[in-house]
C-alpha cells in the first residue's frame, strides 16, 4: 500500500432500543435478556446502518469495517460476513474489512472458505482481522476460554495453510484434524487478503501479529497504551524479520465533526456517554472468564479497574483515548498530530456511536469526507515525512 492516508468507517450496528429498566441489569452483554430485541426495530436499524456504510463508499472512504459480537445490544453483527456480503454489491471501491470473526467460534476451513468467498465476490476488496474474541464471547459460545489462545493459534495456522498451500493438504493438531484441507474457493487476492490481529495489546496477541507480519488493530486502548503497543509490535516483528508498514498500525478513533466546537460536543457527547455506560456495560466476571487471561494480565487489569471506578468524564476520556470531536479544522489537526505521534497513516474511525440518530451519522460522515479528508490529504506528505 502507498503511504497515502487511509480512512475507514467502523460500525458496531448497536441495537439502540434499550428498555426503560435496562439499568437494572449489571450487563448489557451475555445475559441481557433477548426478549428486548424487537426484530421489526432491528430491520429498521439494519436499513439505516447499511445505508450509512454504502454512503461511506460513495463519499470516498477507503474502507468499511464490520466486526462480530454475541448476546449484546452493543452489536447486531453476530455474523459479520453476512453484513459484508450485503455490502459488497452495494459498494464500489471501499475495502470490505471483516475485523472479524473469532476463529475459535468457527471451523477453520469454514472461515477460510467464507472469507475466500467474500474476497472473490468483491473482486479482491476483502481485508480480514482475527480476534481472539472478548471475554464476553466465551460465555456466549461453547468454547473453553482456558484453552482459547492455543486453539486460536492453531486455527490461524490452518487458515493460512488453506490459503497459501495448494490443496489438498493435511493438518494433525491438538484441536483439529484435517485429512483433506482443500477449500474451494480460494481467495481472489494472492497469496491471501491483508490480515490483521485484533486485540487490546496482550503480549500473546502481539506476538502472533509479530510472527506472521500481520497488522494489529488495537481496540479500546488508551493513547499511552497504543503507543507502547505499537512500539513493542514494531520491535517484536523485526525480531521475526518482519518490517511492518505504517498502514499495519490502524488507529481506532472516535470522530465527530460539526460546524462549531460547541455544536459538535452537544451533538456527540450524550451518545458517547451512553456508549460507555450502557452499550459497553459488562461485569468483571464476563470480561475475564476463567483462563481467558494470564494471571499477570488479570492482575494488571484488576489494578487498572480499581483506579477507573469514577463516573463518565468526557474530558478525561478524551485525553486518554483517541477522540476527535469538533470543527473540521480541529479534527484534521488532531488526526494529523496522531498520525505523526503514532507513526501510522491508517485511521479506523468510529463515526456512529450508541443511539446516535441517522441524520447525525450522515452529517458526520459527510463533513468528515468533504472537510476533513481533503485537509489531511493535502498535508499528507508533510505527515509522512514527520512520521518517517
Amino acid at each position, binding site marked *: 500500500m502507498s503511504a497515502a492516508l487511509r480512512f475507514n468507517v467502523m460500525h458496531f450496528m448497536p441495537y439502540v432500543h434499550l428498555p426503560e429498566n435496562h439499568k437494572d441489569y449489571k450487563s448489557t452483554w451475555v445475559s441481557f435478556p433477548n426478549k428486548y430485541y424487537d426484530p421489526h426495530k432491528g430491520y429498521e436499524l439494519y436499513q439505516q446502518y447499511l445505508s450509512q456504510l454504502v454512503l461511506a463508499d460513495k463519499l470516498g472512504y477507503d474502507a468499511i469495517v464490520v466486526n462480530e459480537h454475541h448476546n449484546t445490544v452493543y452489536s447486531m453483527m453476530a455474523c459479520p460476513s453476512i453484513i459484508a456480503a450485503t455490502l459488497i454489491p452495494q459498494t464500489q471501491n471501499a475495502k470490505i474489512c471483516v475485523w472479524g470473526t473469532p476463529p475459535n467460534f468457527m471451523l477453520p476451513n469454514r472461515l477460510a472458505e467464507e472469507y475466500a468467498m467474500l474476497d472473490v465476490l468483491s473482486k479482491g476488496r476483502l481485508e480480514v482481522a482475527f480476534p481472539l474474541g472478548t471475554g464476553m464471547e466465551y460465555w456466549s459460545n*461453547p*468454547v*473453553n*476460554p*482456558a*484453552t482459547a489462545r*492455543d486453539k486460536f493459534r492453531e486455527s490461524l495456522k490452518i487458515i493460512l495453510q488453506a490459503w497459501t498451500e495448494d490443496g489438498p493438504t493435511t493438518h494433525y493438531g491438538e484441536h483439529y484434524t484435517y485429512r483433506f484441507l482443500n477449500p474451494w474457493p480460494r481467495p481472489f487476492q494472492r497469496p491471501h487478503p491483508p490480515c490483521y490481529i485484533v486485540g487490546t495489546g496482550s503480549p500473546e496477541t502481539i506476538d502472533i501479529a509479530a510472527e506472521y507480519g500481520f497488522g494489529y488493530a488495537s481496540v479500546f486502548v488508551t493513547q499511552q497504551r497504543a503507543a507502547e503497543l505499537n512500539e513493542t509490535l514494531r520491535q517484536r516483528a523485526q525480531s521475526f524479520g518482519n518490517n511492518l508498514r505504517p498502514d499495519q498500525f490502524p488507529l481506532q478513533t472516535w470522530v465527530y465533526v460539526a460546524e462549531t466546537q460547541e455544536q459538535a460536543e452537544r451533538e456527540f457527547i450524550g451518545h458517547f456517554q451512553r456508549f460507555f455506560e450502557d452499550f459497553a456495560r459488562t*461485569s*468483571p*466476571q464476563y470480561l*475475564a*472468564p*476463567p*483462563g481467558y*487471561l494470564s*494471571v*499477570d494480565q*488479570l*492482575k494488571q487489569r*484488576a*489494578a487498572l479497574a480499581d483506579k477507573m471506578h469514577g463516573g463518565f468524564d468526557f474530558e478525561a476520556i478524551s485525553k486518554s483515548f483517541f477522540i476527535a470531536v469538533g470543527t473540521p479544522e480541529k479534527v484534521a489537526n488532531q488526526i494529523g498530530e496522531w498520525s505523526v505521534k503514532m507513526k501510522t497513516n491508517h485511521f479506523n474511525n468510529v463515526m456512529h456511536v450508541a443511539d446516535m440518530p441517522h441524520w447525525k451519522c450522515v452529517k458526520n460522515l459527510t463533513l468528515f469526507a468533504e472537510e476533513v479528508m481533503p485537509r489531511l490529504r493535502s498535508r499528507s506528505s508533510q505527515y509522512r515525512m514527520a512520521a518517517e
Partner: protein
Amino acid sequence: MSKFERETHVINGVKTVLYTAGHGEPVVFFHGAGTVDGFDFAEAWTNKYRVIAPYHPGFGESGDDPSYTHLNDYVMHYLELFDALKIDKVNLVGLSMGGQLAALFASQHSHRVKKLALICPAGLIDPQNPMIDVLAVPGEQLVPMLVSNFDVLKKKLPEKPDLDFIGERYRESATFARLFWEHPGDPKFMRYLHRLKMPTMIVWGDEDKLIPVQQTETWRKFVPNADIKVYKGAGHLVHLEKPEAVEAITNFLG
C-alpha cells in the same frame, strides 16, 4: 499448619507441593476446586496416620501444567506421586472435586485404595438434584455459598483481597475451567462407580448450596455399601463446620 511439614516433589515435570505429618498407614486428602479452606482440619488424623495433603497441579503451591485437561490426568499424576512416595495402598479422602477425583482413582485402581471417604463429592450427573454450575457464579458470590455459618470460613479469608489473592483464585478457576468448561459432567465417571467395593464413607451437609444433599441417594444407588452420614446445619464445607464429620471419618478409617 503447625504439625505439617512441607515437601516439594517433581512429578513428571510438575512441581508438586504437599503437606505431611504423622506416622502409620497413609491417608491422602484431595482438596476441592479451591484451596482457601486449607488442610488444618486434617491434623485430627495425624495421631494415627501418615497424613499427606498435596496441592493438585494448577492449585495452591503446586506448579501448573496446562496439558492437564481431564481428571484422568490427575489420576495419573497421583499414581506417579504415590510411586515416588513408595506408597502401595492408600486411604483416600476427597472433598468436592477432590471427592470426584478420589472416587475416579478408586474406580480405576481399586486394589490401591484401602478405604475411601468422600466429602460432598462432585461428579454425578443427577438431573433431579443438579450441582450448580460453579463456573457460572462470580467468585464473590460463590464463597459465601460454601458454608452455612460464614464465620467458619471468614477467618481463612483476607479482609480485603489483594491482587495476589485475586490472581491466585483466578488461576485456580482457570485450572478448573480447563477440566470442566465444555463438559461439567462426565457420564463415564458414573458408569464405573460400581467398582467402588472398598469400604466407603460419604459425608454431606444438609444445607449444601453447591451440590444438593439429595445426591446422597444417587450415590447410594451406585455404591450400595457406602456408609452415608448427613450433618444438619452444615454446608458444602461440612468438614470445617462440623468437627463430628471429621471425627466420623477418623472412626471410619479405624
